[in-house]
């Protein structure tokens, strides 16, 4: 999955999990729910780390969440997590804040997409 071009990315690309796990809907839904829970706590952690200006930890946490975002097909989330990684690596406070806010909206989008499919 190339998460470098936002235009080609989906909020929730169903194909990703189909190719990984097959068509077991229960399993897929379970992993999606796990991701939403993980995303919520991870986002809170990232926000707290941002307030403390802990850029190295922000990068690590964003990288951690990016793995599961990619795995469930939350491509736009994965894109913004990559942006957060890059911004925190460059110690760019403004960009970092902006991407964290966008990520929050994207996670809500994933939640809506999951709800509409269950």
């Amino acid at each position, binding site marked *: *999955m*190339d998460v470098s071009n936002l235009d080609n990315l989906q909020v929730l690309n169903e194909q*990703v999990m189909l*190719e*990984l*796990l*097959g068509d077991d809907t229960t*399993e897929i839904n379970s*992993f999606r729910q*796990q*991701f939403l829970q*993980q995303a919520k706590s991870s986002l809170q952690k990232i926000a707290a780390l941002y307030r403390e200006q802990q850029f190295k930890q922000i990068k*690590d946490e964003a*990288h*951690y969440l990016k*793995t*599961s975002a*990619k*795995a*469930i*097909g939350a491509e736009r989330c994965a894109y913004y997590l990559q942006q957060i990684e890059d911004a925190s690596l460059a110690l760019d406070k403004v960009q970092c804040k902006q991407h964290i806010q966008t990520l929050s909206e994207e996670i809500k989008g994933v939640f809506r997409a999951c709800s509409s499919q269950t």
Partner: protein
Amino acid sequence: MARKEVEHVERHPKVVLLCDDVEELGGVTEVISSQITAFRTLSNYDSMQEVLLEAAPLVIIIAMSSVSRSVELYSKLAKQGVLDYPHENILLCENKESGVGFRCCMKSIFRDYFIYKPMYENYRLRMILHNALIRSKEASEVTNISEEHFGRIDDELKQLIDDAAEYHKTAEQTLKDARDNLDQTEGINEVQTALIQELKKQHITPLLDKLETQLSDSVAELTSRLKNKQISVAELSALLTERSIPNTSHHASQLKEARVVTAVKQPSYEESYEDQLEPSPAPEPEVESRPKTSKIMVVEDNEIYREMISKILRDEGHNVESVSSGLTAIKMLRKQKYDLIFMDLFMPELDGYNTTKNIRNIPNCKSIPIIALTSNKNKDLIRKWASLGLAAYIAKPSTKQSILKAVEKCNVHS
């Protein structure tokens, strides 16, 4: 009675007929050989492997005594890796197994099937063969062109890397000569010599040092970029080759060591007729997996992805243990033996590279296959990591097929 195999001994056949009883296929071989002379009949497994490897025939026709045996043979050959090239496969079966043959094609195990017992339509077989030859020739041509093209690019890249190294060497020598000449240069009197020494110390030597560093950095950067391109080209070439291999081969190789059991109630002629009217409740080859006991460790800090990989492997019958950190992995590897490790690159405390370094120092783990789980962005790190011995690397999130293929590549099975 001598086997009829000797009648079709073309060294580089374009069409092969794989069977267990040549005597039964007299009519078929006659039809095929009238269509194409580059044809060979094979009934011995070793000869089949040898011919497939050497000649890579475009069309493989399989006519074992039953469909299940044909599927078994094809999957065994696929597992041996002798079918990893573009080809077409055709199943020949008896009328009583027409339903099974049809379903095998629907499941993409075979491209087409033909009823040879009784053989009513020999022109139909000719047609199937004709179409298969056209399709496979086209696929083969595309593969050859892409291999040639990528091979040329790869050669050019290698040449550029060598040229860069040569240029570096020459430029370093030139700089060294300049320094030597400078050291030997003296003025016509002490004042001039002192002035030259001062110039050398203050300006020329720092300039040469700077030039040398810049040169070294630039060549290293250029070489690294060329090597990245080389990897990209190799990956793209491998991807194109993989795509040109027919689905049938992938499906068959997925059967791996599976035992194909024909839990088929052999239908009568009337049942076959009814089967054509109502296709749903028909018998089909049932694939029964053997229990697999290979022990695989998954080292990944993200629990969701860790669980996904573990599930894929467990579903294939592997014994999987997953851990969230490199340190735990090392502890467990000191106590127990594993057949394969899947490992993430970025992990807290100890990353994949350093975990691997430690693992390689554990007795019995020096050659354990390790599959790297990472993203496409970390090629330099992967290269460094690969120097410790990586069996494969998987770009996250990947697919079930790629993951299982990587396991297969490591020769890990039951």
